[in-house]
């Protein structure tokens, strides 16, 4: 039993520590790459379009859902 709780403390501690460091890392990267962030942007849009298909698809879905919701609201207001 004690071993179980020990593992839990150790494991959760490690998971939280790792992800907290990850947050710091991501924030650090965001600051560090700011001066060069524009570098890949322009060509990236043209080159990476087929690869980014999955992402745009789900965005399309969200857009579509938003549009449907808007129409729905509009209609219900009319009544």
């Amino acid at each position: 039993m004690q071993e179980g709780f020990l593992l839990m403390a150790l494991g959760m501690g490690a998971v939280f520590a790792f992800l907290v460091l990850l947050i710091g890392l991501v924030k650090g990267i965001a600051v560090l790459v700011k001066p060069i962030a524009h570098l890949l942007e322009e060509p990236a849009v043209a080159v990476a379009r087929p690869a980014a298909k999955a992402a745009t698809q789900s965005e399309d879905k969200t857009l579509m859902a938003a549009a449907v919701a808007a129409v729905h609201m509009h209609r219900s207001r009319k009544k």
Partner: protein
Amino acid sequence: MRSLKLLLIAMFVFVSAVVFNTTALAGPDATVSAPTLSEQELADHANNLTFTKDIGNGVKAVYYTWHKPAIVYSVSFLEGQTYNGYRELMILSPKDRSKGTLRLSAASKIISIGKLVKTKCQLEAGNFLYTYSVPTVIHDSKEKDTQANDLKFSVMLTNLWHSTGIYDIIRTTNADFKSNWHLGAGRLIMMFVGIVLLYLAIFKGFEPLLLVPIGFGAILANIPMAGIDGPDGLLGMVYYVGIKTGVFPLIIFMGVGAMTDFGPLIANPKTALLGAAAQFGIFGALIGAVLLTNVGWVEFTLKEAASIGIIGGADGPTSIYLTSKLAPHLLGAIAVAAYSYMALVPIIQPPIMKLFTTKEQRKVKMTQLRHVSKVEKICFPVAVTLLCAFLLPDAAPLIGMLMFGNLMKECGVVERLSNTASNDLINIVTIFLGLSVGSKLNAAAFLNFQTLGILVLGLAAFCVGTGTGVIFGQVMWFLSGKKINPLIGAAGVSAVPMAARVVNKVGLEDNPQNFLLMHAMGPNVAGVIGSAVAAGILLNALT
């Protein structure tokens, strides 16, 4: 027409069975018989499993000497054959000892095999297993076959009957049902379990990509006498190459990385904490397993408990990776539980999410995520790999492969590689992973109270993970000044992208204009990293 076809098939089956029987199985009768062991020799080795004795002319005989009887689970060697070292010969289950595999320590020629060395037979102390000699040279040249086999119809028919699955199941079920049932009737039950898995996958849409191969693998592996899951069988070899070594789950993880967009996590990194909180499910189930052992309902060792807990990580490859390292005998049950519950996420999660949140909280709208530049997305996988390398090398195989896949996707210059990793390669590996996991579904390992415990604890792990994720979501809701919707905490239990979709759906129920999908993807992908870290810790602590 149809009956003719059936007749042809039946004839083909008969003929091929007879040919198989006369060529492969009909070895020469044991010409070298081994002397029985003396009382003294037996007494000396009563606490060892086997004893090897030199019986002259360079021939050695191996005896079973453990002082309690053993049941032969499987036999996979033939008389007159020469095998390499480490080749599996048979699996024994001695009373009061763990089930074990007997292997050759060095290349040997098997000269004769004892009469009792047959599947499902019972061995007593002093029983002779086999004789062998150690050849100095191995060759494969054979004499020309001059002796005509005199085939008799009656013999052929008997042999044919003896080679059918029905005969094998009847023989096993008749002989000592209590200790042998899982080798005979148990196979039938496991084939039925395989069919149930196929039904769930095909008609109910439960993770079909995995449960179809797993279900069919279970059927194949339980075919009597075919030995498809044995050391020379297809699934046995695939299991050895891909799962025992941990290669398959890692390749799948690479594919997952090539399919995952870490953008939402990079845009709002603090949601990673939700992915960490949901990992409580893993350790909650681990403690649950230890508790069940303490109460005395089901016996689990700490390694087994850890493998069960990882179901709460809601991540198939991670579960399979950790279980294959810590408790391979539970692999079938744990994989089935993990994938079944992942399919049930839309049913398990919503009630728990609603229990821990108020209607007002569920309506909270989150601000739109900022744009993430490509450079950031490229730096992310490299940085995470380095972080893992410095802090937790035990999780490096999992996280390293995940991040490598992601780098291939984001860098945009190796589209061919990233397409292969996320399509063809992951599909090929999934087929073999599913089949070989299914082949571990045998009656002895699956039809027991441990499996029941695993199913209950797995469900508990999902519930606890969802609960702690949402509760931590509450904390962040409070700390952020009511700007974070606590619902997204539920997505912390990985299960990408199912859990995030569930969050989106529950959010829409209370506020039809609240789209939480992208916000939930942050904790969702952080959950993948979190469960890989947890797996690394468990591996480190328990091996």
